[in-house]
């Protein structure tokens, strides 16, 4: 596959232009397909009307482990991108094309089942808002230091650190966009809490503090591309799964409890890792913008964690007690998939220390 070469080529081109480009906001180019499903989606999106075909039920059912299947995750990611910034060369009306939505639904059904099978839930499940808040706090306290951030803090080389940033760019360049879909589905104190978190994520009134753009500036200062395309082409199945499960929960009103729980778990496990990653960026004398991005999240996510657990999830369960189990499901899905993705990334950084430079 050509994807590794894409990132390297863009790295050198970006360095030539001194990394001055602004974060691109338009549609990205279509990623390189890597199997039957993503090939079917990409060719379907670019075919002329009347000649389009998308993944069929039997194509999707042939996948045995969707969480770890890069082709499956890439296909779903591309379909979700139609609901965000769109894809260059793809007709915008396809966002609501019934055939395409049918294909997306087939992928989502298989993915959601796999996620539910993967996670371990507490027994008995909490039912009240205070029980949910206590369980979220219990789930997100770790007795040990997180391995991947500790590696970045103390051991990672310059190239390994950049490889980490490239892998995580698929998430950071779209930071908090998915949760905007949750806002109209909830009300009262839960809505106020989510809006408070999102206002901070989107710069608290200052465009220069938009978190996704701070990350893009950090990439630019390192001579790395700021567009998503090359990062998606290089992203691991689990990285795409981590982003896709967030979009799945936030795009479906039915799963609003899981979307809230997912955000709470994400925020509650962000601050300590970000401090370690900032330490690593300082140790490697990386540009100030790289340190800035992670330091910003040390303080911001210490706030967001509290607002998400009590304000968002607590108020949501008070208003809709039937959502308690879904809140815990969302938190468990976040922790499980993000741990799998971090373990995979750490193993790769150790096995291929020069991957991004070679």
């Amino acid at each position, binding site marked *: 596959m050509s994807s590794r070469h894409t990132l390297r080529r863009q790295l050198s081109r970006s360095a030539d232009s001194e990394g001055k480009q602004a974060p691109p906001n338009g549609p990205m180019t279509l990623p390189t397909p890597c199997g039957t499903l993503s090939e079917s989606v990409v060719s379907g999106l670019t075919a002329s009307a009347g000649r389009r075909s998308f993944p069929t039920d039997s194509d999707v059912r042939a996948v045995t482990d969707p969480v770890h299947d890069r082709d499956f995750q890439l296909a779903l990611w591309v379909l979700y991108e139609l609901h965000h910034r769109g894809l260059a060369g793809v007709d915008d009306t396809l966002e609501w094309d019934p055939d395409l939505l049918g294909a997306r639904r087939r992928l989502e059904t298989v993915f959601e089942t796999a996620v539910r099978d993967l996670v371990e839930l507490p027994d008995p499940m909490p039912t009240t808002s205070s029980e949910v*808040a*206590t369980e979220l*706090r219990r789930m*997100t*306290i*770790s*007795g*040990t*230091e997180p391995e991947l951030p500790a590696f970045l803090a103390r051991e990672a080389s310059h190239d390994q650190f950049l490889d980490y940033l490239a892998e995580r760019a698929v998430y950071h360049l779209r930071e908090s966009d998915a949760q905007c879909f949750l806002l109209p589905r909830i009300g009262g104190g839960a809505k106020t809490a989510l809006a*408070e978190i999102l*206002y*901070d994520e989107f710069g*608290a009134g200052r465009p220069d503090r938009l978190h996704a753009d701070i990350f893009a500036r950090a990439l630019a200062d390192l001579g790395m591309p700021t567009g998503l395309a090359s990062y998606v082409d290089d992203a691991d199945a689990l990285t795409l799964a981590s982003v896709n499960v967030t979009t799945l929960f936030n795009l479906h009103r039915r799963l609003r409890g899981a979307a809230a729980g997912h955000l709470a778990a994400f925020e*509650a496990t962000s*601050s*300590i890792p970000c*401090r370690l990653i900032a330490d690593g960026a300082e140790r490697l004398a990386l540009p100030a913008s790289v340190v800035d991005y992670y330091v910003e999240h*040390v*303080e*911001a*996510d*210490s*706030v967001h*964690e*509290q*607002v998400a657990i*009590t304000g968002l999830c607590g108020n949501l369960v008070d208003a809709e007690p039937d959502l308690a189990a879904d809140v815990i499901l969302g938190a468990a899905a976040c922790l499980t998939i993000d741990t799998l993705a971090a373990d995979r990334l750490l193993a790769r950084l150790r096995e291929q220390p020069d991957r991004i430079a070679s």
Partner: protein
Amino acid sequence: MTAADGARLEVTLCPGGPMLLRGATEVRDEDGNLHPVERPVVALCRCHRSDRLPWCDSSHKAPRPAPDP
């Protein structure tokens, strides 16, 4: 701590965690240093383990070093 003129200042204590402040404009720490508040809500450390005092950095949740034998 001081509130913006005429604004409402709200303090929320989080179980086992920090103190959230909404509406504050600055915080004076134990040594008398003033820290401007630069986000709509800030979390003040209550466990005294933060490396970014007076702000919470979630150190209250960090694994504690093993006690001396």
